[in-house]
């Protein structure tokens, strides 16, 4: 076996991320462009919204309860006389940040275990660890996801933190299995063997050798997981099991304005539309990324 140390595809510096043409592919497809545009618009609304809001999102009694739209309150007021526009402008942050926290946690724990499992396949005497991790994933994957989240929330209390942890628990084995599969394809590479021969630590090999070489999968998996997490978390907040009052989280806002839908429909419509645009944009980006990873596929995702 001869290895060309200068030009071989394996000959990159450890720690360098390789995702050739990712942005080009993303921008080349119509869906990807629309998704990126919508996502940029939503990020702008969510990030700049709080500084542009005319009132405080939680101030009660700014106007009359359920006042129709007027020049003072462009979207009208809710049942407690709070300004719906201000609540909308503040309410997007948790819709993105809570799923972000859950997915990050799931990827660190689940993805970490998955990549570790793939790596120990090439470490004689440690193969049992991979089998253990895989069986744990299989068992966890057989459980109904939403029900598991509801049971955990029922047991440990209704709070954003419990909900984030529950969602992370559900996503961890799913992410883990995908990243294990991706890492399996590169663990037999020469650069891994070389790092082993140099006596590098397991952590070094996982983070500096394996991770950069499955970066494209990690990015696509992250986006896909985020699209599902945004939907999942918004649904839990809508059920009253995520964000808690007086938060103006869009999911919670829809649920609270639900009882007054006939008198101030904008209280439901504005946050619902916000979530809709956000999840459609993420879905379009995830679809385009999936095509980047596997040009033959174009499978749409299904949530929950």
């Amino acid at each position: 076996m001869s290895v060309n140390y200068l030009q071989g595809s394996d000959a990159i510096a450890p720690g360098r991320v390789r995702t050739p043409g990712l942005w080009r592919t993303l921008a080349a497809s119509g869906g990807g462009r629309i998704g990126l545009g919508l996502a940029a618009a939503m990020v702008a609304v969510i990030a700049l919204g709080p500084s542009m809001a005319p009132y405080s999102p939680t101030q009660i009694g700014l106007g009359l309860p359920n006042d129709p739209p007027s020049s003072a309150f462009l979207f009208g007021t809710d049942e407690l006389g709070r300004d719906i526009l201000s609540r909308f402008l503040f309410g997007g942050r948790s819709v993105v940040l809570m799923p972000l926290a859950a997915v990050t946690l799931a990827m660190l724990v689940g993805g970490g275990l998955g990549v570790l499992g793939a790596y120990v396949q090439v470490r004689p005497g440690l193969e049992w660890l991979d089998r253990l991790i895989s069986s744990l994933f299989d068992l966890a994957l057989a459980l109904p996801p939403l029900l598991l989240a509801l049971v955990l929330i029922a047991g440990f209390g209704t709070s954003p933190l419990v909900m984030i942890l529950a969602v992370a628990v559900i996503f961890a084995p799913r992410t883990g299995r995908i990243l294990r599969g991706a890492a399996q394809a590169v663990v037999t590479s020469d650069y891994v063997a070389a790092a082993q021969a140099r006596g590098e630590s397991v952590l070094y090999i996982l983070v500096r050798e394996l991770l950069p070489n499955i970066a494209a999968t990690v990015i696509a998996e992250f986006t896909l997981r985020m699209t599902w997490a945004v939907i999942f978390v918004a649904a839990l907040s809508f059920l009253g099991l995520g964000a808690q009052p007086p938060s103006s989280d869009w999911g919670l806002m829809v649920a609270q304005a639900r009882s007054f839908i006939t008198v101030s429909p904008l209280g439901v419509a504005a946050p619902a539309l916000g979530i809709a645009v956000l999840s459609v944009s993420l879905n379009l980006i995830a679809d385009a990324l999936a095509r980047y990873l596997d040009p033959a596929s174009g499978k749409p995702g299904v949530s929950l």
Partner: protein
Amino acid sequence: MTAKKITEFLAHLRGAPGQRVVLSRLGFALATLLLMSLITFAATSIAPEDVARNALGREVTQGQVELFIHDKGLDRPFAVRYAEWLAGAATGDFGVSAVTGRDVRADVMPRLGNTVVLALLALVIGVPLSLGVAVYMALRMGGWQDVSLLAGTTVLTALPEFVTGMGLVLLFGVTLGWLPIDSTALLFGSAFDNLSAYVLPVTTMVLVTAPYTIRIARSSICESLASAHTRAAILNGLSRRRILWAYAVLPAATPIINTLALNLVYLISGVVVIENVFNFPGIGRRLVEAITTGDTYTVQAVALLMGAMFIIINLAADLMAAYVNPRLRAR
């Protein structure tokens, strides 16, 4: 006995490959169900103090809490309580809710009926509709009808259930005023009220599940339409109907059946959110109510019930997939 005979005997015990698959999947499903019950019970009642405080409310003394714990036998070891609960659950006895004071089974059963009707209606309407739309799109592949429907399904797949549901409420309930804005009429309304109470929840379920089925079915049918044997059939002058059915739809059956099974599994969790959008009196709504009011016994009962349904449907879907795809049977 020779070694060969022993191997043959063991093979006989293990059964034919088909049977073996059924048995191993059945075993896995049972293990999953047991795990689900353990997680449910452990998460909701590992701390007797929480169970008592949930049931009694905030304004109680420590003495009352301890009395409740002793009274309900919550001071016994976890394993004993779990075994007792599981035995009760197996016979349909989930105890009396400490929050509502009603027998949990009597409370949950009528709601289960409503939920099953809702899911079945969604299935009966959604499946033929999805397949019809998929065939229509496949026959006009690349045309404007196909492209716009494809864009529509892309958007619908991406939307959370409650956003789709709320959109329908805003359109048909608030703006047009054609349909009731929620399904509470089911609890007391007339026959007509009952019927109209189902329309929006069922429509939401169809709009949430159909797009995925349509996309998968469309691409499989497109694939089989483009194949050489379909072209040969067209050249042989077979009738249009026969070509569509025997050469385009039937060969695409495997992915379509897999997708339908996925849909069925999804409906179990989908009902939770959709019932809450419409205040539909089903078990999904009851589960969320029970979580919010700290009704531990009802949470346990509904979670176990829905978990069992999920796992059984998953098992059926697995076996069906193995049946239509012989390659899966060998494993």
